[in-house]
């Protein structure tokens, strides 16, 4: 299909009445990308101090039927999960992301909770995952796929429980992008051999982003029948955040 490619790109240039961009013009666009310049970021969350930002995150999340429970330490997670499952009349059985960030949760304090680590399968009713960030402006969770964080956990089970640390709550999507870049594509350290610029890959030839980034704002919903909102269209019917307030906000 390279004839199609040439035709389409040629057609674009013809319509724009120019040839391919000059090296200078291309360099300017490459620079625009590398700068990651932000457009207008709403003041709603950006102007807040960390405590108020956390409150805004919780308020925005609850507005879209996410439930939030605040706990003071990771040690409290098993108790909160057990309480939530009992309150929602759900089985005490869950599949937990095999991510090391969740390894320290003392599940043995709740021996009645049945825990499996791995990806979600069709029969799993409840999942528990970490996340990369919470975005305060709309109460949105940011999750990245990886060996420890399979994406099926976010969509197959009826109930999705997410562990979010207060220090992970940022103001805007743009703050989230910065976190992503820092984590998956860190800038070269001083002394490191310069990578060729303008190339597509990250530090070691890896792609710039994980396979899947999920921005999740409330449980699954649809308004496709008479515009009456129903939760749990295809994804989770319930989204529950365990907000761990164990460290002062670092962001």
């Amino acid at each position, binding site marked *: 299909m390279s004839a199609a490619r040439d035709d*389409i790109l040629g057609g674009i240039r013809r319509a*724009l009445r120019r040839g391919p961009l000059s090296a200078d013009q291309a360099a300017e666009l490459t620079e625009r990308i590398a700068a990651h310049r932000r457009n207008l970021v709403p003041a709603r969350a950006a102007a807040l101090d960390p405590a108020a930002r956390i409150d805004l995150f919780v308020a925005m999340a609850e507005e879209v039927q996410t439930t939030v429970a605040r706990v003071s330490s990771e040690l409290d997670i098993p108790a909160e999960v057990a309480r939530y499952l009992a309150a929602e009349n759900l089985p005490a059985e869950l599949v937990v992301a095999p991510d090391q960030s969740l390894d320290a949760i003392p599940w043995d304090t709740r021996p009645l909770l049945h825990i499996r680590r791995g990806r979600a399968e069709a029969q799993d009713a409840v999942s528990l995952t970490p996340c990369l960030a919470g975005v305060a402006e709309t109460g949105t969770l940011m999750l990245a*796929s990886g060996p420890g964080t399979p994406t099926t956990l976010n*969509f197959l089970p009826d109930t999705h429980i997410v562990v979010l640390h207060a220090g992970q709550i940022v103001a805007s999507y743009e703050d989230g992008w910065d976190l992503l870049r820092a984590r998956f594509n860190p800038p070269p350290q001083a002394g490191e051999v310069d990578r060729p610029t303008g190339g*597509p890959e990250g530090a070691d030839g890896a792609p710039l982003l994980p396979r899947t980034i999920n*921005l999740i704002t409330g449980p699954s919903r649809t*308004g496709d029948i008479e515009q009456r909102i129903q939760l749990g*269209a295809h994804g989770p019917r319930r989204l529950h955040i365990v907000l761990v307030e164990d460290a002062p906000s670092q962001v």
Partner: protein
Amino acid sequence: MQPTSHSFPANARAGLADPILQTALGLARTGFPQRRQEAIARLPEFEELREQGRAIKDHALANLDFYLELYERNVTAAGGQVHWARTAEEARATVLAICRAANAKIVTKGKSMVAEEIALNDHLEQNGITPVETDLGEYIIQLRHEPPSHIIAPAIHLMKEQVADAFREAHTELDPARPLIDPRALCDEARTVLRPRFLAADVGITGANFLVAETGSSIIVTNEGNGDLTQILPRIHIVITGIEKIVPTLEDAATLLRLLARSATGQEFSSYTTISTGPRRPGDLDGPEEYHVVLLDNGRSALLGGEFQDMLRCLRCAACLNHCPVYAAVGGHAYGWVYPGPMGAVLTPALVGLGEAGHLPNASSFCGRCESVCPVKIPLPKMMRHWREREFAWRLNPPVYRSGLRLWAALAQRPALYHALAGTASRVLGWAGQLRGRFRSLPFAAGWTAVRDMPAPQGRSFQSLWTEQQRRSERRR
């Protein structure tokens, strides 16, 4: 899908006479605009974001070749494949070839207007592959064998009773006596029926709301989560989308995302915004093994550099449909193809030809609401006017219509004659209508008076009052 846009007048009359459609449209008329208004009232920066959104899309379109090539390099670097399709036919063939190579039997689909545009489902079915629409609205209309009537709410023309009928007819394995009386039950039934299809699918096809050049990513925005199950469960993920969806960076995408959900459904943010980059990575426990992107041109590049380029900014949010008095009266099927409402009135003639779709840019009162709510400020009325001019220049209107326009133009260019005739007509009508103050019928205006009375002219014309006032103020000076 074969367009029926040439039958717009007949389609529209049928829509106006359809009581179910009218009830359904009644719900849409108030719901969408009100929710949008509430969302925007909460974001003081919205107007400034619209301006920036417009600028981002303009910048991307002015450098479209550069960003497409960069996007392709980054998709490839992430292990994905980009396929270029000049026409609907090429796009269909590409998708079919990928499905065949995978020996696919069942294909799940997230909602994609581009897939509708190229009539992908028919093509797959004709070749022995079963496409399963998974968006609830799309699933309903697939069962009913009809096209979508709205670009974000495909089954907006139906009430729950029609949905229940379609489900009873299709889901014969379920108890026929089950109650299907409310949207909750219907939604649950669709979830139950579709879950095994998600798990069985060999290929998942989604559209894209945005393509990010910087990272080689595709972004979909959904509420149901069906698009995500469609792309993470099957072995192969195919993205099919138009070349104009490209944006330079994630920062640019963020600005447009802030505009999209608020303009579309009035949500602060949709439930799921998903950024996909290539196939599954080493060590991943799930995700597709292959990731393909089909980039469709199909007439889009030809719009660059001309009077319709602004249309390529469109985010497909449907705000213009939701605020259009014509759409709200006749519904989406009247427009006779994939894209209805004001955005369809501009885009459809470009994609299927003005001869087929000439009625659409005429089906507007030019009230301007579409442009005023567009998140990227597309001048829709102006472009409809461009189509009307072309229609006249290319001699596509009927002779009587053309003669009438020519006559009117001749009068309008001769102010003295125009005022004399208008004054006479106004005096005659004023005299004839003085008893009732209105007319129930008038010669040559049956179309107008069939549904409303024409008020009788009273007193003098604006022009003569204006002239007199000008004279008076001159005298005072």
